[in-house]
Each structure stands twice: as structure tokens, then as C-alpha cells.
């Protein structure tokens, strides 16, 4: 199984960041403490990079099924943070045999994550 991955879109909330912090045991205050985060260069909380990356994982599993679980490869750079209230969209463009350029962008078109996904050593 490996169809063209369909985009996954999600709007982030502060409550979701708290739930992800609990699930991943990552309670870094930049993600969960608005008062702390206001005093940082970000000016407010930002989403965990792995939370945003999860949209790409969700998209790839939906397209590739079990092939993604045993044989999937993902290599990305986190380029910009997502914030509560942002709507983020993961998408994929074919770039070879069972390989895709992947990215996650916000509603303003800013690329937050970009990289490559493949299955079974895809080219």
C-alpha cells in the first residue's frame, strides 16, 4: 500500500499543547507556560516540534499503512515555530520511487517543517 499522501490540516490550541506535554512528558515552559514564554524571544508559547511533525507522520501512515511502520524513513528540519491558534497543514509532493518531499506550513504560507519521507529505501 502506498497512495499519494493526502494533506492533513489541524488548528493548534494551548490546551492541545498541554495534552501533548502530558503525553510526551515534555513540559518545557516554552510550550506550556504563557507567562514564561512571553518573556522569551518568541513572545508566547510555541508548539512542540514533534507535535507539528505528527501531522506528517499521520499523513504518511494514512497513505502507506504498515509499510510506513516497518520501512518508513523521515528526515526533516524544523524551520519555524507553530503557535496556538495556527492552522498547520502537512503535505507531500512525489520526489521519486516511493519517496516524497514533505512539508508543514501555517495558514500564512510560512514553512514550519520541511524534508523528505520514503518507504523501503525509496529513491
Amino acid at each position: 500500500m502506498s497512495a499519494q499522501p493526502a494533506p492533513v490540516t489541524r488548528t493548534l490550541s494551548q490546551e492541545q499543547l498541554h495534552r501533548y506535554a502530558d503525553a510526551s512528558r515534555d513540559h518545557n515552559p516554552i510550550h506550556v507556560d504563557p507567562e514564561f514564554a512571553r518573556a522569551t524571544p518568541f513572545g508566547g508559547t510555541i508548539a512542540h516540534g514533534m507535535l507539528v511533525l505528527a501531522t506528517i507522520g499521520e499523513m504518511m501512515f494514512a497513505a502507506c499503512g504498515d509499510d510506513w511502520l516497518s520501512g518508513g524513513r523521515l528526515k526533516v528540519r524544523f524551520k519555524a515555530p507553530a503557535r496556538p491558534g495556527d492552522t498547520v497543514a502537512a503535505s507531500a509532493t512525489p520526489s521519486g520511487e516511493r519517496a516524497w518531499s514533505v512539508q508543514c506550513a501555517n495558514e500564512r504560507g510560512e514553512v514550519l517543517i520541511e524534508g523528505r519521507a520514503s518507504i523501503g529505501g525509496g529513491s
Partner: protein
Amino acid sequence: MTSSARTSIAALPRGHEIAPATFVLADAGVRAYLDAVGDANDYGGSVPPLAAVALGLAALQEQLYLPEGSLHTGQEVEHQQAIPLGAELTLTGRVAQRSERQGFVISVIEFEIAHAGATAIRARTTIMAPGAGA
């Protein structure tokens, strides 16, 4: 565990070996993860690979801490085999690369997550952390 009991990632030299750590991703933990990320896929008794990586990163942070201002700048993951729900997982890792630039230390942590004696996931996490002088 407080940060004072751990070592800053910025202080770890290239080649530093992370002590093996074990953790379990049981059904409740995976459901909490899927709920938090909003993923409605049915993984059919397997652990979503990025859930295992996220919990692996948590296990790493029981041994090292990220100084204030640290950024997760890159992630690579290879899924070698599916991980069944409830499997006891063992994480081993090391500092594969370390460089300094403009007051920041850039560390690449390479780690494997294994179950039943076989590697299930290989991952490389890049962290940019303020150096001692930053």
C-alpha cells in the same frame, strides 16, 4: 529529577554514550498521544513511530537537560520494524556530532529504540543549545 542532577546537552562531548533506558508504550499512553496530536488513524495494535520517538526523547531528558533557549532543529527517523503496543522498549544512544557556532552548541543525538533484542527505530535528533558563554 531536577536539571541540576543531569548534564546539559551543551556540555556533552562527541562520543558521549547515553546510559540505556527502558520504557513501555502501553495502550493508554498511545491513546493519550493520538488524542493529543489529533490523529484518528487506526494503528492496529502498533505504536505510531513518532510516539516512540517522542517518548524516547523524554527518556533521554531523564539523563540530560536542555538549557533555556534550546531548539529542536532537525529530526531523522527510520522505522525498521513495527512496535507492538505494550512492548518494553530499550533506548541506547550517543552524541554523534557536536559543533559550536555563534555561542550555540549544535548536538546530534543518535539513538536506537529496540524491543525483543532487535532495533525497531533509529533516530537522529539535532538540538541547538546556548553554550556556556551565550
